[in-house]
């Protein structure tokens, strides 16, 4: 189980994994959602 194996971990395993790509991908996802929402909101206002 996780707890018992915790002591056995190798030092190079744990330190910060580079997740820059993930950060940018989720940011782009957020931008897409906002763009869709505001696009439809503009359409709503213009009608």
């Amino acid at each position, binding site marked *: *189980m*996780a*707890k018992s*194996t*915790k002591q*056995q*971990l190798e030092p190079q*395993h*744990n330190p910060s*994994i*580079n*997740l*820059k*790509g*993930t950060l*940018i*991908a*989720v940011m782009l*996802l*957020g931008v*897409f*959602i906002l763009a*869709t*929402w505001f696009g*439809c*909101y503009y*359409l*709503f206002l213009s*009608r």
Partner: protein
Amino acid sequence: MMNPLKIAKQDARLYMSFMYVTFASLLVGGLMGLLQTLARSGKFTLPFNINYYTILTVHGVILGLVLTTFFIIGFQFALMGKTVGISDKQRKAGWWAFWLMLVGTVMAAVTILVGQANVLYTFYAPLRAHPAFYIGLALVIVGSWVAVFTNFRQLYVWKKANKGQKSPLLAFMVVINMAMWFIASLGVAASVLIQFIPWSLGYAETINVLLSRTLFWYFGHPLVYFWLLPAYMAWYAIIPKIIGGKLFSDSLARMSFILLLMFSIPVGFHHQLTEPGIDPTWKFIQVVLTFMVVIPTLMTAFSIFATFETTGRRLGHKGLFGWFKHLPWKDVRFLAPFIGMVAFIPGGAGGIVNASHQMNSLIHNTIWVTGHFHLTVATTVILTYFGIAYWLVPHLTGRRLTPRLNKLGIIQSIIWTVGMTIMSTAMHIEGLLGGPRRSNFSTYAGGDQVQSWIGYQMAQAVGGTILFIGIVLMVYIFIQLAFFAPRGVEEFPIAEEEVDAEPTPKLLENWYLWIGITIALILFAYTIPVFDILKHSPPGSVPFDWPIGRY
């Protein structure tokens, strides 16, 4: 992580029975979808005087209710059998669930096919179907409850035998999904048993339409999460194994499922935003609760990207997105669900538009909504189910996914993507131009606006035809995997935790707490408005068999 168990032959037979119904439903329901898109193009008349609303109802019921429920319950039984095991008694209960659901399905399907239940899958009152339709649906739900309590029992027995250990992640997820399904389906069961069956039998003269629709959507929104959560199970706990990685975070996955349990039920009013008779304050409150679902959804997106990136970097791929190029694109067990994930981006964004109170008026009852759920359930969910079937079916039948079948699966995924992109995009645009959903082809006495819809309806027929080719190919692959592929062993992929993973907090398995909060939220969101509906409703409606209910 516990070692996964071996699935015995007699257990595999039970799980496969659910799969046979799933893929038979795919063929029948898909054919109805093709006929609908052709009929709505205005260039094709349905043969043998078939009623458009009959095929529309078959399509919705067979794909939205039957295919999904059978696949989910079969898949979840397999997950439980693999992670916590199944006893002889539990297997017998599983067969009860299967037969009850099958008898109910056949009853409802025959009633629809003989034209006695053209009420669409939402069966809105005051349209009335033959009582056999409602009784059939009630049997499907009762059968699913047998599965619910069997799954609960499976985990309970395991926990007793493994005191102090955390439950396997997939078993935990199955129990969350079944808890949500049970709590939600109580609403539709109450409506069917107390309102629809007596009314359709003639024992009650009228029906409270608003109450029936409110109870339907109390069930109807969590229904879409019931479809989606098995896909999330695969994304969180199976895909990492397929791409050669590990589980990103056991705690994050459990927390996301708990949030989905809490926030997927007290939100049905966002399907009823144009409904008179519900206080706007309560609509607003339920819209806010709906938006809370964004949190676990984005947690899932983050977790998936992080799994991909962590795995890619560990395999030595550099650069900001270097890990992305090296995902196993030629493995259909990964590709089909991945396309499903991508489709969930526009699908989810569209869903936020639908649930936004004012903007709902822009798209309400238009074919935009149909385009939306063909991205979510008919792409995200179904392509993930296909992705699961590519390994689950041969695993259960003792066969192998051969390179040829893998290639056919990739072709199938591409066909689906092309067909759905054409059909769903055309539906979204036509919806923004005011094109209605649900209705048969009409020129509406030659209105100008109608002319702008016709081209998109033609595009939907093209997309629908391509999708039907994809369905035939998928059914062929399923038959091959079930009966003809070479004998062998196909892996049941379950991702393991990192060796240095943080322990999962025990709090995440406090069922009393999470189910208690869920019930409290439901009571908060529904008690006063339902009381208002009961107290202030206009007189109930007599049944209408015309224009589309029965003929």
